[in-house]
């Protein structure tokens, strides 16, 4: 039992974070709680001996995705908007339906999992899992990897194109100074 | 090439770091309470009043002429003349200040009072680590605290004190000669008949 304490802790962080992320009103708080849930998940991976996955989980989800969410909230003024009950639940029935569907599909896959049938959980003995992952990615799964890479590059390019805005000459944006400049040019002093 | 200027800067600071252990030029700070730089003779902080001999009540050079009071830019000096005159160092009857106060919290240490004083009475001090626990009474420096002996003045401004002492010695000698001559002149009517008799 004492050996399970770290697991319960991590599970509590994950579940608590996830619930808080769902239920809190302040969007920035939600995002931060979601990051907490991601980190808890990483801790669970670590306990299962999946170091590489744990590291990737923290690096990608906590380090990148959570930051992305936070940025998105701030850039779209989401942090300021006070959500009303109506905004949060346009149609309760649809929500329930989605929850049911998700739960059913999760339960189905868990029930069919072989680890439920097995009385003792046998961890596969893998030496240097990171190396194995690398080798697999570079051999058997090289095509999917490259495809994902290409997709991400395209997405990034698209993002850049979207983000480029025609920059008006910021320096001349201030009215008084523009007038002053003009006056100067008219006076033609050099 | 990128970085060459930065490396130059690194060499410069590295040199300063290393030299600070060997070259006194590169470690210029003075450890204040333990070490103190000797003050320059001209250094000025706040004014004080010079008195001759040992008794400030008698030897105070100030004649309450109030020039410093007039000229003080922030107006931090207050003088009230005494009602009776006393003889000064040459024996001339002069007023002395009954009240002489300087509000140190207002004084900016410009030294104009010392510059305009015709009696070499008000001079600038070297004390600087002054402190007080309240800002009314202890900031108002009265005559008693302002008066400092000529020996002290000599110790902080030796060159200036030498000049002033010489000048005052001369004046005193002149005055004494004058009184002697006057005394002689007074005595002369008594001798004249003798002279006349001799004549």
């Amino acid at each position, binding site marked *: 039992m004492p050996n399970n304490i770290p697991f319960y802790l991590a599970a509590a962080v994950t579940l608590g974070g996830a619930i808080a992320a769902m239920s809190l009103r302040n969007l920035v708080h939600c995002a931060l709680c979601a990051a907490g849930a991601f980190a808890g998940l990483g801790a669970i991976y670590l306990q299962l001996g999946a*170091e*590489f996955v744990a590291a990737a989980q*923290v*690096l990608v989800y906590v380090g990148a995705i959570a930051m992305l969410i936070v940025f998105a909230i701030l850039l779209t003024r989401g942090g300021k908007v006070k959500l009303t009950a109506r905004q949060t639940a346009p149609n309760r029935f649809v929500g329930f339906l989605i929850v049911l569907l998700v739960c059913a599909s999760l339960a189905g896959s868990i029930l069919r999992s072989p680890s439920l049938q097995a009385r003792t959980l046998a961890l596969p003995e893998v030496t240097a899992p*990171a190396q194995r992952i690398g080798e697999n990615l570079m051999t058997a799964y090289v095509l999917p990897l490259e495809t994902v890479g290409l997709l991400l590059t395209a997405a990034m390019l698209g993002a850049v194109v979207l983000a480029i805005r025609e920059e008006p000459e910021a320096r001349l944006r201030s009215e008084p100074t523009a007038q002053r400049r003009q006056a100067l040019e008219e006076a033609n002093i050099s | 090439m*990128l970085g060459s*200027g930065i490396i130059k800067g690194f060499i410069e600071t590295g040199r*300063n770091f290393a030299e600070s252990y060997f070259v006194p030029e590169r*470690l210029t*700070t003075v450890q204040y309470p333990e070490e103190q730089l000797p003050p320059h003779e001209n250094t000025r902080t706040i004014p004080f009043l010079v008195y001759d001999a040992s008794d400030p009540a008698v030897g105070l050079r100030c004649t309450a002429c109030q020039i410093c009071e007039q000229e003080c830019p922030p107006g931090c000096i207050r003088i009230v003349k005494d009602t009776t005159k006393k003889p000064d160092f040459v024996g001339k009857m002069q007023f002395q200040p009954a009240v002489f106060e300087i509000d140190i919290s207002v004084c900016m240490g410009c030294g104009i009072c010392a510059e305009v004083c015709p009696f070499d009475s008000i001079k600038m001090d070297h004390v600087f680590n002054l402190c007080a626990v309240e800002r009314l009474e202890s900031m108002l420096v009265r005559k008693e605290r302002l008066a400092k002996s000529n020996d002290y003045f000599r110790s902080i401004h030796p060159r200036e004190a030498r000049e002033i002492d010489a000048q005052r010695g001369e004046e005193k000698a002149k005055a004494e000669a004058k009184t002697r001559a006057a005394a002689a002149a007074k005595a002369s009517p008594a001798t004249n008949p003798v002279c006349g008799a001799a004549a």
Partner: protein
Amino acid sequence: MNWLDQIFVTSGHQLVSLAPASLQPAASVLLTIAAIMAVCGGCFALTTIIERKGLGRIQNRRGPNRVGPCGLFQPLADGLKMLTKEDIVPSSADKAAHFLAPIILTVPIWLTFSLLPFGRNMAALNLDSGVLFFFALGSATELAVFMAGWSSQNKYSVLGAMRAIAQMISYEVPLALATVPVLMLAGSLSLVDIVQAQGGYALGFVPRWNVLTPWGLVGFGLFLTAATAESNRSPFDLPEGESELIAGYLTEYSGFKYALFFLGEYLGLFAVSGLGVTLFLGGWRAPLPILEWAPSWFWFGGKFSALIFVFIWARGTLPRLRLDQLLNLAWKFLVPMALINMLAAAIWHLSPQWGGVFTSPPMRWLLTAAMLVFPYVWLGRAVNPRAGAKREYAYAE
């Protein structure tokens, strides 16, 4: 001399063996944690005073020298001051995030120390994906910085946090890329294996440290630059650029929370320095065969201190970059350089198999060095177009 080398390991084992058998694993864990926290905490205190004294010397001053002998107890006095200061929370601040930010900042940084091999057999954890884990923990601190800046509800704090995040995200990329050649050649992500791979001596006396190869040297330079930025040290201290943003995301922090940020910052510096030592400077290995008698942890400590001194030196020398210049440097110089460096490392690694002239070490040296010098000059010019064009000043008659 082996006992001295392993003194911490053996004494640790002995201490653990005092505990009842059932509690020994837990005792071992606790002991390691306590040791790391004590050593790093002590280093933190020592570094603050050494930094201030070193900066003082660079600036022709003495630095703090009043508390205790040579001012050595200054950190204690500072700590006491921090602890007793009033903890001010702005009334409009987001209290929870404001409170949690310093904690969230320091925790992942403490975790990174468990991965560093401080000496022979002296790594608390030998994770198979150590370097990756290291970067993962490093990236977790960004969230804390954001929380600090956002929760303070201060414009300077928000600007500082934005700068910090932009900077940390940008510099994570070159930091990771600069380490890739080392991982490639060591064939492992484990820090212990990487130190193993740097063992032995070429020609009998030149250590096989990564920094002593062309790609290693460049990689080390890139790593050092990116690490400085990642730990928000001068000349990349924009997030808390005192002359611009007062204290950046720390503006609204005081007392012990401020001290925690301070601690986190220094620990981050230690972590990347330790990583730099491990990846490029041969970890705990001695620089010469005849110096092998000294304990391994001594060599790690020595290299580590030297690296810290370099950081202090830079802080005393360089002005701060601007945000756009900072990002330009990352994306237009460090990242391409790191990619080219990877190529050079690959050629260095593979060229002996090609036979012919490539088998001779001088040839490999020349080839990879040339591969790196030209891009360096070219990219350097691109990132700093004004360099080289020295301005001339006329005098009026």
